[in-house]
């Protein structure tokens, strides 16, 4: 089996399964199957678990490009869209949980939340910015948009910054966990800055 085929027929399906596992676990907890339970305050538990996995998968998505540079192999890029779409799935469900289960569709309260609570404002903004990225993630859109596609999808950096900021801002006091996310994001973005600098330096050095 060629490495291309192996990725398509083995590794990508496995990645889908891995990405679905936290969601599957949550579904089993909701259904109270095999002794699994949600515990007290189930709405918040579901909301938080979905948000955490959405953010983790978003950072994983952003790790693919640096991984390609580090390994010198092209395969990480073949997982980028898959991971990004799974991240979007979790974050969309995170929002839906907030909307339907936590706030029970109470629109005036939701509008007030988004307008008055800065951490909700930026979280909601990040979610909205992700929608065009998810929609235009297909090969067809990519062809149609050409170079504008790349520019559009740079929005993912902003989404990740807003997402980590949202997490940092919402915790009551113990910022250790959000700081880990912020640190990883800083590393991933810093890597890109360093890479583009060394590239432009190389370009300058290359000019006669």
């Amino acid at each position, binding site marked *: 089996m060629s490495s291309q085929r192996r990725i398509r027929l083995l590794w990508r399906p496995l990645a889908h399964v891995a990405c679905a596992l936290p969601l599957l676990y949550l579904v089993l907890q909701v259904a109270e199957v095999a002794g699994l*339970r949600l515990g*007290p305050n*189930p709405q918040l538990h579901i909301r938080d678990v979905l948000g955490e996995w959405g953010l983790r998968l978003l950072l994983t998505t952003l790790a693919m490009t640096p991984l390609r540079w580090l390994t010198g192999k092209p395969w990480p890029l073949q997982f980028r869209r898959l991971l990004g779409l799974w991240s979007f799935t979790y974050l969309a469900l995170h929002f839906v949980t907030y909307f339907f289960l936590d706030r*029970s569709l109470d629109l005036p*309260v939701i509008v007030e939340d988004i307008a008055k609570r800065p951490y909700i404002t930026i979280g909601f903004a990040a979610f909205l910015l992700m929608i065009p990225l998810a929609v235009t993630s297909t090969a067809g859109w990519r062809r149609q948009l050409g170079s504008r596609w790349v520019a559009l999808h740079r929005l993912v950096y902003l989404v990740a910054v807003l997402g980590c900021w949202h997490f940092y801002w919402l915790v009551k006091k113990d910022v250790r966990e959000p700081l880990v996310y912020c640190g990883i994001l800083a590393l991933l973005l810093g890597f890109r800055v360093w890479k583009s600098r060394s590239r432009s330096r190389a370009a300058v050095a290359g000019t006669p």
Partner: protein
Amino acid sequence: MLIRKPADIKSSQITPEGVYLRRRALLQAAGFAGASTLLSRAVAAEDGIPAKYRRLAGVRKSPFSTKAAPNKFEEVTGYNNFYEFGTGKEDPAAESGRFRPKPWKVKIDGEAEVTGTFDYDAIVRPHTLEERIYRFRCVEAWSMIVPWVGIPLGDVLKRYKPTSRARYVAFETVFRPEEMPGQKYPVLDWPYVEGLTMAEAMHPLTLLVVGVYGVELPNQNGAPLRLMVPWKYGFKSIKSIVRISFTEKEPPTTWNLSAPNEYGFYANVNPKVDHPRWSQASERRVSSGFGSLFAERQPTLPFNGYADQVASLYKGLDLVRNF
């Protein structure tokens, strides 16, 4: 002083115990053997409370109790904040096993005629224990109904004869990082301290708690002695108390020191004064099981529903500024 009975809360606000009971029947009927075994695993005695907790004898019922159905024992003891054991809601239950609430001594000092270090029994034994089923409201906008067992704090304090200079009562939590892993990290300035005005401390609703659900207080809930001020956010009700001081000046309080713009000295439950980062207008009644997934939030009541009893304490005080 005329103290009225607390107003009963609406039936729509009561934790749906029936949902839970029905769910268990449904599960068993459906033959989820694994699930039903797990449900009964932690249960030893008939009342569903593990046998390792010592029953408290001679507990009197109180007219101050709400008629709402209490939360389940596993909710009260499995989901709470006690940062001394970690910042997660399940940390207190998981990390408090090494804590030793016995023997226990409390230092009583400051503006009082009787001061010194007193044994737990000397503080608690002279009084009759009462069960008080109170609404509990966390500053994080979740709430429970909890059947505390304790004694009116005022009755205890009177025996130490506070002087006329005593205007506040300060409390301090034990500092034992070896037994309380959360204290190894300075997420808060340890030891935890809290305080009340003398009028708040002497109010008949203010309880010195020694138990819950008719048993001795589990470690995760603040064993062996904690405060319960039902009209204030939960963080005012300091746990595992080792020091009570009568003071002339307003004592420092831990969450206020940590974030003065978010947590005030008074911390009275107030739906009209939002936390800077979230609304306090409504709350989520803690409730487990599939049925509770679709329960709506409920409106938060001024002074957590105890306004008739305590609002007069704050006459003339600007509750927006003194949050």
